[in-house]
């Protein structure tokens, strides 16, 4: 698909010198950062500097070590600051480390945003107050003014990005998805780390072409349709599963570096902070949220995307995912959906034998070949 590579080359990183703020969790209302005059940069990949972090304790997930190592090794020097959402205990400890080591990490500015774990009217009120606090901090720290008008504009812009990505995911429900999982991961990366206006402008015509084209690769319909569930997972999984001799195609990622980035629509009118608060808390509940709704949502995705098998990927020490697993696996067993639980890092080597044998099992289940 040469078209994809052409599209890719049109997307440029945020130009050096343009003020940018980093974010980590998809419960961070990035519209506020944008309305304060910043580009937004989602840090969702390995910094490659995990081992630089000799400060935070070992039983934190590799994503946190990657971020903190990266901050210590100046990998994020293009940023003016970061917003850390208190969405899990690991991120909260990242904030502690960031504050504690102050002068040794770049960028120095960081703000902790507390996010409730329930979506109730009082939680929405509470989260709105936290957002007001974020606005005040940004205004004071960077000497700016965040107007309602700018917030409305930002909401419209990000809603547009989200709706484009939702359209992209619709295409993956087809028998012959016009994009591979690896390509979607690259698109999501662009959407999270580049200039939003530029991204929307370049991506929309490409997406329209995809929507209008007949499938480019009919062989994709013979592959096993897979889904990755997790927090920040290792993108190598998708690359491996989609190799020709493995025989999978990844059609959905219910993960922090997957569809959790865009699974909401924020009301573009009225009190913008209220809209953001209820819009973000109303996101499809991820494992950090309390209650059972997340599993229902997962089961719904499995039927919508007609999933043949699910990879449950746990970055080492990700407690939310460990603790959610018995519950999720029970539901999957009831539904008869094959799944594979894997633990590991967020980049680098994988247990390929486990992944390959999982595909073999799905194929066997389908064929019910005479195995005796």
């Amino acid at each position, binding site marked *: 698909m040469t078209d994809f590579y052409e599209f890719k080359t049109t997307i440029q990183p945020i130009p050096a010198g343009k003020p940018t703020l980093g974010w980590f969790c998809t419960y961070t209302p990035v519209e506020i950062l944008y309305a304060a005059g910043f580009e937004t940069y989602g840090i969702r990949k390995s910094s490659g500097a995990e081992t630089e972090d000799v400060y935070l304790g070992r039983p934190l997930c590799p994503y946190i070590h990657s971020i903190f190592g990266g901050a210590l090794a100046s990998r994020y020097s293009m940023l003016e600051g970061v917003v850390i959402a208190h969405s899990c205990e690991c991120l909260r400890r990242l904030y502690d480390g960031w504050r504690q080591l102050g002068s040794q990490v770049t960028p120095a500015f960081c703000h902790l945003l507390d996010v409730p774990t329930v979506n109730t009217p009082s939680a929405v009120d509470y989260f709105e107050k936290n957002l007001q606090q974020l606005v005040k901090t940004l205004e004071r720290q960077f000497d700016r003014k965040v107007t309602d008008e700018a917030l409305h504009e930002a909401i419209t812009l990000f809603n547009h990005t989200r709706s484009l990505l939702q359209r992209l995911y619709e295409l993956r429900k087809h028998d012959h998805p016009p994009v591979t999982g690896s390509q979607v991961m690259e698109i999501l990366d662009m959407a999270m780390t580049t200039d939003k206006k530029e991204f929307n402008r370049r991506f929309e015509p490409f997406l329209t072409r995809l929507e209008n084209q007949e499938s480019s690769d009919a062989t994709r319909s013979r592959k096993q349709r897979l889904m990755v569930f997790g927090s920040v997972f290792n993108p190598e999984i998708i690359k491996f599963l989609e190799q020709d001799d493995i025989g999978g195609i990844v059609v959905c990622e219910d993960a922090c570096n997957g569809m959790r980035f865009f699974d909401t629509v924020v009301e573009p009118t009225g009190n913008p902070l209220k809209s953001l608060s209820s819009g973000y808390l109303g996101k499809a509940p991820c494992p950090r949220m309390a209650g059972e709704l997340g599993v229902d949502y997962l089961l719904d995705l499995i039927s919508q995307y007609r999933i043949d098998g699910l990879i449950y990927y746990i970055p080492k020490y990700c407690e939310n995912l460990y603790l959610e697993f018995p519950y999720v696996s029970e539901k999957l067993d009831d539904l008869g959906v094959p799944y594979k639980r894997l633990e590991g890092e967020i980049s680098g080597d994988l247990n390929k034998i486990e992944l390959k044998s999982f595909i*073999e*099992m799905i194929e066997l289940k389908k064929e019910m*070949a005479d195995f*005796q």
Partner: protein
Amino acid sequence: MKGFLGIDVGSVSTNIVFIDENKQVIEKEYTFTHGRVLSALKQSLNAVMERLPADLEILGTGVTGSAAELARSIVNADLYKTEIYSHARATVHEFPDVRTIFEIGGQDSKVIYIKDGVPIRSRMNEWCGAGTGSMLDAQSSRLGVPIGELGALAVQSTKVIDFRTRCGVFIESCAIDAQARGYSVAEIAAGLCNACAKNFINTLNIDRKKLETPIVFQGGVAANIGVKQALERYIEEGGGVKCNLLIPKHYNVMGALGIALAVRDAYAREPWESSGFRGMEVINKIETCIVDANTCGEKVQNRSNRYGDILQLTIGNQVIATL
């Protein structure tokens, strides 16, 4: 005689099984790999070939195991499947009603759950080798007990020391502490077998209450009666069924048997004209060398799309495969 070769190159042993068209095991060979895949493979292939009749015709070959990629290139195999598939295939062949498979090998351990003769779920030890043969190997050589006798020694002991650790290295510290306190070698051996069994169950998160029988126990460690009894005891202690683990006849070459059966199935479904098997004359001449792709002047891409060190198989000056 016509038949199929199954090859399983694992961390500790290289195993070969030859079956005829009726799925009967004609020959098998279990050789220690000793870190040398190519020479172990040549040695065991030669050993099997020598014992097979002269009118031999190899219809197909299959590979599995941790060094399957390399072995596949060396013999030019017709089929590759993972160890999990291969082990399940062989076990279902021997025990059609099996529900659970325990496999403990050199550094791998796995549990495979079977329903209606098809594997439905599996789990491998991902990060810890304490519940595998390597731990027993290291500890029995420290005790000066041949590994083949450790199990028999363990079952002589009436006392089982409970080494309270989940780490293979710290088990050694516990064993040394036990010997200093005056425990006999048999008692320590029983403790080691018990530790292996407990680590196996815990590392693979096996819910003992929900285990379904028959359970088949295979892999090199299945030869160890001490571990077998420790597993049975530990399952029962955990509220599981009182059971007798079944040990297959070819327990230590099940991977090789499974892949041989899989090749036979594939051939029976859709026969190919001739097997890719290179023949012993060619295989015996093959050498391997690691080439640093970065020093070749240009980047060479290997089959798995990685850049970096590449492996070349050569005969004389001729490169016959790159991976």
